[in-house]
Every structure is written in structure tokens, then in C-alpha cells.
């Protein structure tokens, strides 16, 4: 699995109660891409992501990770390749202490205790949660839980990072930190988010899901400048592309304001 291509073909998922969460989803993500998956609540984003490491079984269609079809036999290998951060960190933390929780994955991969120790300390520092290592996970704040959940996945050095709303509930500093971390991650990144500014900053490519179907798939700039598409999918432009709320001037990203302002706020 040298090329970490993610190929999803005609994926369908119908939940046991009859909800058709994914109707027909196809895309190919090549190695090293950073892809944002956006869409309204209930569009099927979480459902889609949970297929990528075999947590959910497709009702129809197929998934290939690095040319290996996802099936019962290949599951252990695929789960080693695809690191997955779930939407709700409470689902991800289950050991008595933060340290044990982060060590769980590396121990399963058969690392030696010394390596585990080092690895755990490293990733906890990465998400600046080093001071939490001996605390029980259920005594953490929401954002701290999220950070530890991200550490548990990073500790396994996955080749493909899949995250469901990673910055949800993080404070601005932690959000920045996580974004830097994701920018430095050199392998494939796939994540969902309602934080469209983050998507704009981190992603070359955006896939828009709407009612279980891919409505659009293309470069972030194109998608976010298509007002009609955004409105139809209950989305809006990232703040960085919207006009200045004070003066109604052009987008903050465009460096030149149309006319000199009479008020004082820097446009960077």
C-alpha cells in the first residue's frame, strides 16, 4: 500500500430503520491530497467517513484503500492505514487514564514499552495535552477530550488521516494548533467540518454532500464562489471570503479596499 489512494464507488448506505443516508457517492482521492467534506446537518458526512475504515458496512458499492478492496479479510490492515477521529470523543476514549488510552493503539501494534512511552509523550505534546496524561478521560473538558482523541489516532502514525469535525469544540488557540498540525501532515487528509474557514485554509479540494449525494467536487475556491450551489446545500461562504461586516467592503482576502475607510480596523 505505497499509494494511499482512496477510491469510493457508487457507495450506498441504508440504516436499519430505512434511512437512506448515502444514495450514490463516488470519488477518488489520491495520495497527499487534503480534502474537506462539507454539507448540511444530516447530509451523510459522518456516515461516509465511517465507511472509510470499515466501521460501517456499505449497503451497496465498494471502497478501495490503496487498491485493496475493503472487506473482512483486509480490515485489520486497512484500519492500520486509516486513522479515524470520531465526531464524539466520548466514543473514542475508554481506558482508565489518558496515557492508557493513547497507548492502546501502539500496544496493539506491538510496540515495545519504551517506544510506547516515547510515542505517547510525543503525541500528547503535539496536541498540548501532556499535563493531562494521568487524568481519567471522563474528567476532561470537551475540548481536552477532543485533543486526546486526536492524539490516540496520531499515536498510531496512520497513512491516511480521517477526521469528523476535528475542530468542533476547540478553543481558538487549539484550533490553530490543530490546523498547523494537519498542514504538516504529509499524507492524505480527509475531514468534515462546519468550520468553512478551516476548510478554505487547509483543503485543495472540497466535496459537497447533499442528502446523501455528491453535489459538487472541485477546488475550494470554485466551490466557495458558487453562491447558488452554497445556498442550495444550506452552506455559506467562509468568513474570510465575505465582505467586511463593518464597512461592507470587499472580502478580507482581497487586499485592496475599494475606498479609504473612516473607521479603524485593520484589513489584513
Amino acid at each position, binding site marked *: 500500500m505505497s499509494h494511499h489512494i482512496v477510491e469510493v464507488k457508487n457507495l450506498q448506505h441504508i440504516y436499519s430503520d430505512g434511512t437512506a443516508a448515502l444514495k450514490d457517492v463516488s470519488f477518488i482521492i489520491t495520495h497527499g491530497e487534503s480534502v474537506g467534506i462539507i454539507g448540511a446537518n444530516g447530509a451523510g458526512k459522518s456516515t461516509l467517513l465511517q465507511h472509510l475504515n470499515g*466501521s460501517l458496512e456499505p449497503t451497496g458499492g465498494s471502497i478501495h484503500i490503496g487498491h485493496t478492496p475493503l472487506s473482512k479479510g483486509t480490515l485489520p490492515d486497512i484500519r492500520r492505514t486509516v*486513522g479515524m477521529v470520531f465526531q464524539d470523543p466520548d466514543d*473514542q476514549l*475508554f481506558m*482508565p*487514564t489518558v496515557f492508557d488510552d493513547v497507548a492502546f*493503539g501502539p500496544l496493539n*501494534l506491538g510496540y515495545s514499552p519504551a517506544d510506547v512511552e516515547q510515542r505517547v509523550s510525543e503525541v500528547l505534546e503535539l496536541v498540548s495535552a501532556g499535563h493531562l496524561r494521568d487524568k481519567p478521560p471522563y474528567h476532561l473538558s470537551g475540548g481536552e477530550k477532543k485533543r486526546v482523541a486526536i492524539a490516540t489516532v496520531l499515536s498510531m502514525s496512520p497513512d491516511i488521516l480521517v477526521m469528523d469535525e476535528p475542530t468542533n469544540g476547540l478553543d481558538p488557540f487549539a484550533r490553530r494548533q490543530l490546523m498547523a498540525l494537519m498542514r504538516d501532515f504529509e499524507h492524505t487528509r480527509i475531514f468534515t467540518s462546519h468550520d468553512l474557514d478551516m476548510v478554505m485554509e487547509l483543503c485543495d479540494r472540497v466535496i459537497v454532500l447533499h442528502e446523501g449525494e455528491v453535489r459538487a467536487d472541485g477546488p475550494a475556491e470554485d466551490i466557495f464562489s458558487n453562491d447558488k450551489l452554497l445556498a442550495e446545500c444550506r452552506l455559506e461562504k467562509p468568513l474570510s471570503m465575505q465582505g467586511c461586516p463593518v464597512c461592507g467592503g470587499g472580502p478580507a482576502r482581497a487586499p485592496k479596499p475599494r475606498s479609504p475607510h473612516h473607521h479603524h480596523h485593520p484589513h489584513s
Partner: protein
Amino acid sequence: MASINKAVLDLKRLDLLANNDSGIHRLDARAKVLVTCVFILCVVSYDRYELAALFPFFIFPAVLIALADLPPLFIAKKIALLCPFVLVVGIFNPLFDREVLVNLGPLAISGGWISFASILVRSILTVGAAFILVGVTGFTAVCQALERLGMPQVFAVQLLFLYRYIFVLSEEGSRASRARELRSCGKKGLGIRSFSSLIGHLLLRTWQRAERIHMAMLARGFTGRFHAYRQSSFGKKELLFVLGWSTLFILLRFNNASQLLGTVVTGIFS
């Protein structure tokens, strides 16, 4: 529901105690499991009317609590939680078994009361020993030790999941009951109907959450085997620990220590 949640959180605290560092904590988990098993077997195997012979066994929990620096009051409270169940099990003995066994002056004590007291003492001893075992070893390590001692892996993993799901259930329970309390606007409950639907939801939610946690475990390379971070081997210390305590328990079991002490003392003075 809140109090259940608190009790369960306390259970987690017991697990956290296992992260302390002491001579007892550092012993291989198998040694501690073996000794605890011998202890429980010896205590349980007594005749139902035996009472006096049980008391010397308190030396084991006492010594472990002291050596491992566990909070004795906390352990005592945990054991006390269990007393209502023991009462239910044992309370009929005095009613059915009225044959007088012991006469303390004018006071005649029936066999029922003695067997009731015996059940109580035995429960305290065995449950206490189990709590202490978890407190000095950690539940994961206990299951792992059981597996390494020959228990089939399936059972060990089942046991672990059972333990985890107690927490999941209690967490879901406390969340649901808090939501219900907040929306009942201070009125005392909304009748049995909302309560029964709450229980139904609770089971469903617990089941779903347990499933999601299982998925998260699988996603992190879980293959049905729990790895303990603290590696240890069965060395001389462990052997000494097992042999020492087991000999003591077996000696106590087959000689009534109080009687033994009595004969020794009378032997000296005669």
C-alpha cells in the same frame, strides 16, 4: 440515578488506584490473582456455622491495604455498599434455623444467627479481597492475568467488556436522567410513563454507544487481546508472595487459629 453514577465513578477511582506505585503494585498480576483465589477458596469452603475461624483471615486485606497504601475508608465504604445484598441473602437464616447452637449465659444464639453472621463476614472478606485485588492491579491486568493463567481468551475479553459497559450504562443513565430532571421543571417526576420510556431509551443508547466504542477499539488495532503497559514476569518475589500467603491461608483453614493459639498459650502455662 445520580447516586448510581457516583458509585460507578468511585469504581473508576478504584481502577485509578492501580496506577500507584508500591511493592505490591509492582508484583506480577498473576501472583496477586492466584493468592486472592486461594484466599477466597479457603474462606468460602468453611462450614456454614463457622464464625470464629474466619476472623484471622482479616490479616490479608489489612496487610495489603497497609503495604499498598490504599485508602482503607474508601475500601470499607465500597464493601458497605454490598451489605444490603448480603442482608437479603442471609436474612431468612435466623427465621428458618432456630436450633440453639451456643449459649452465652442466659442468651441462646440459634444456628440461623450464626450462619447469617458467617455469610456476612465471608462476604466482607471475599468482596474486600476482590476490591483490593483490583485496587493494586487494575481490572485490565487482572483479566490479562486470568488469561495467562489459562482462562480462555473469550472469557477474559467478555469480562473486560462487561466491566467497561457498566461505565457506559451509568454514564448514559446519568445523562438521560439529568435531561429528564431539567425538563420536568422541578416537578417531582413526570409519572411512570416518562420513566419507562427513559429506561427503554437508556438500553438502546447504551447498546449503540457500546457498539461505537467497540468500533473505536477496532479502529485502533484491537484484535481481542488487551496489552498491559506494565510488563512483569513471575520471579522469585512473586513465588514467595504466592507460597507465603497460600501456606498461611491453608494452615488457617485446617487449624482453627484461635484454638491453636489457645493450645499454645495453655501449653506454655501448664
